[in-house]
């Protein structure tokens, strides 16, 4: 690496400003809007988990997943079953169970699709996740015990001890708390040395494999973690919406995960969150117009087409430079610290 003659210039970073801005805005939502809008916003937050998990897979580790909703919906179904069949609605149980369901199911799918003697092709992974999601939707829609095509209603509220959490500001802040935890954890992972390996994989997977990295294991790890993140949201979603249906683990919801991520901008964790906000807000405002309603998914498809063709970095691409998006993993700073000093001797050339 060519060393700069002066200490690395402090880059003006936009990402932290954006992150803090979004956080403050999210914290203020229940204070400035009605309960009705807070409930809509809570729903968006839950979908943000889904979007982040897609981004972890596609944006950070190159796993093209068209079935991310599978883990979301599975966790939702398990927690709805816990509530309806066992009467268990305590949040301290629901959240870990949802996370475990997401983690285990994602691990199993990832294990089958990613690990093995041969490196799977990207189309195999894309198709495998799509098939898994499609098959799960079909199975659940034909299974009477879990409500078949009608899905399951969850009448009970989530509880903390004896207190019921109704959808509203309290539930909103609980979801936001979990989202912040997941966001920080994901951010830590993708900015750590582990994340550096992921960045390398994105650039040239083969080279990383020659360096001795078990590339597929890294992918399986990220995939499982992403499943856990979205599983957590799925469990809460069943209680927040009071409903979980086959659509929640099928192709449609999975497609939305892809859309949120691509529209917001993959490769930044904030992008998908913004993507969810933008798409869901437009959808919410358009849903009043009855003539447009059936064609809303068409508009989404068109947006996706335009984004992937002309604007692969999504809306965050307008705000954040590529350099900042990828990050430096402390390399420039370290290189400056370890630069050869003039008085070191030894490297002074022929004397």
């Amino acid at each position: 690496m060519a060393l700069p003659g002066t200490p690395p210039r402090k880059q003006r970073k936009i990402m932290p400003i954006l992150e803090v801005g979004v956080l403050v805005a999210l914290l203020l939502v229940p204070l400035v809007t009605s309960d009705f809008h807070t409930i809509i916003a809570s729903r968006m937050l839950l979908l943000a988990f889904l979007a982040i998990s897609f981004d972890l897979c596609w944006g950070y580790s190159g796993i093209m997943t068209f079935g991310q909703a599978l883990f979301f919906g599975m966790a939702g179904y398990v927690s709805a079953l816990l509530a309806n069949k066992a009467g268990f609605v305590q949040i301290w149980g629901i959240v870990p169970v949802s996370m475990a369901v997401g983690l285990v199911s994602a691990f199993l799918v990832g294990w089958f699709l990613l690990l093995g003697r041969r490196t799977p092709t990207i189309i195999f992974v894309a198709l495998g996740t799509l098939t898994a999601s499609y098959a799960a939707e079909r199975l659940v829609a034909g299974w009477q015990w879990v409500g078949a095509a009608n899905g399951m209603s969850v009448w009970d509220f989530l509880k903390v001890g004896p207190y019921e959490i109704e959808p509203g500001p309290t539930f909103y802040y609980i979801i936001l708390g979990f989202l912040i935890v997941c966001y920080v954890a994901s951010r830590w992972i993708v900015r750590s040395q582990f994340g550096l390996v992921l960045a390398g994989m994105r650039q040239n997977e083969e080279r990383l494999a020659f360096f001795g990295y078990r590339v597929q294991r890294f992918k399986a790890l990220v995939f499982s973690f992403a499943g856990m993140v979205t599983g957590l949201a799925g469990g809460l979603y069943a209680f927040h919406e009071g409903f979980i249906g086959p659509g929640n683990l099928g192709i449609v919801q999975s497609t939305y995960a892809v859309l949120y991520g691509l529209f917001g901008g993959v490769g930044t964790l904030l992008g998908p969150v913004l993507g969810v906000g933008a798409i869901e807000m437009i959808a919410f405002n358009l849903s009043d117009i009855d003539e447009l309603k059936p064609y809303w998914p068409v508009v989404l498809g068109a947006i996706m087409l335009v984004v992937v063709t002309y604007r692969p970095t999504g809306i965050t691409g307008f705000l954040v430079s590529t350099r900042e998006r990828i990050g430096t993993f402390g390399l420039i700073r370290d290189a400056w610290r370890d630069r050869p000093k003039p008085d070191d001797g030894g490297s002074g050339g022929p004397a």
Partner: protein
Amino acid sequence: MDDAIKLVFDVAAFASIMVLVVSGLAVIASLMGIFNLGHGEFVLLGAYTVFLFREWGLPIWLGMMVAPLVVGAFGAGVERTVIRRLYAQPVIAMLATYAIGLIIREIVRGLIGGKYYAIEEPLSGAFQMGGISFSVWRTVIICATVVTMVGAWMFLTRSRTGLQIRGALENAALARASGVSTARLYALTFAMGAALAGLAGALMVPLFSLSADLGVRFLVQAFLSVMLGGIGTFGGPVVGGAMIGSMVPGFQWLREIPGVAEQVSPVVAEVLVFVTALIIVKFWPNGLISAGRK
């Protein structure tokens, strides 16, 4: 014995449909390295064209003749506007075709609603042969598939354009250097693949009912077939398509075994097909046909 012949006949009809769908998908994937995730919706578009003809009061068979042309023209349009920009990035192209598929599916859903429409066979009835009755329409499907496949094979092996396509498949850079316009070939191939999908959609719509999610089902099955057969050869995807196409009704038929039907619902049987295919692909990632050669 009669039942067995009838079963083989029915399975052959479904397998023919799948072969048509798959060959369209595979020809695009082999030549350009782009997996068209909107292929299922091309099939849907073909089926919808037939539906439109019926709505307009025109004969259904005319709709079936026109459907491949309509879908082929649409495919050419898609290639010209979107896919052409993305040859260098096949993965991005896949996302783009996924978006195109989404647009088609949702437009059709908006037009026909969430309903299922049954479309009658243009040639209904059955004929007797050796005391067994065969559905006329299924016979037409099988014949049409055989004719199309033989035609495609002749085109690829005997015509000048077919030679150029095979050359471009082998080594695109060398083909360009030799003065073959690969861009033109790609456009032609994409349109041809789309037309095959349209034909498949038009022919099979009397067997399945028309609904917006028709394409998704075929997409999953077609992809499994392509991966099962392996790309890059003419025979591979055809064999893969025939396998998946016969496994789907075949697994349903297995439910006839006493005691199985109570345990295994039709949906489970369908999912089992996917699982079986995925497991095969997992262990033979290059497909069954090309596996021996490489």
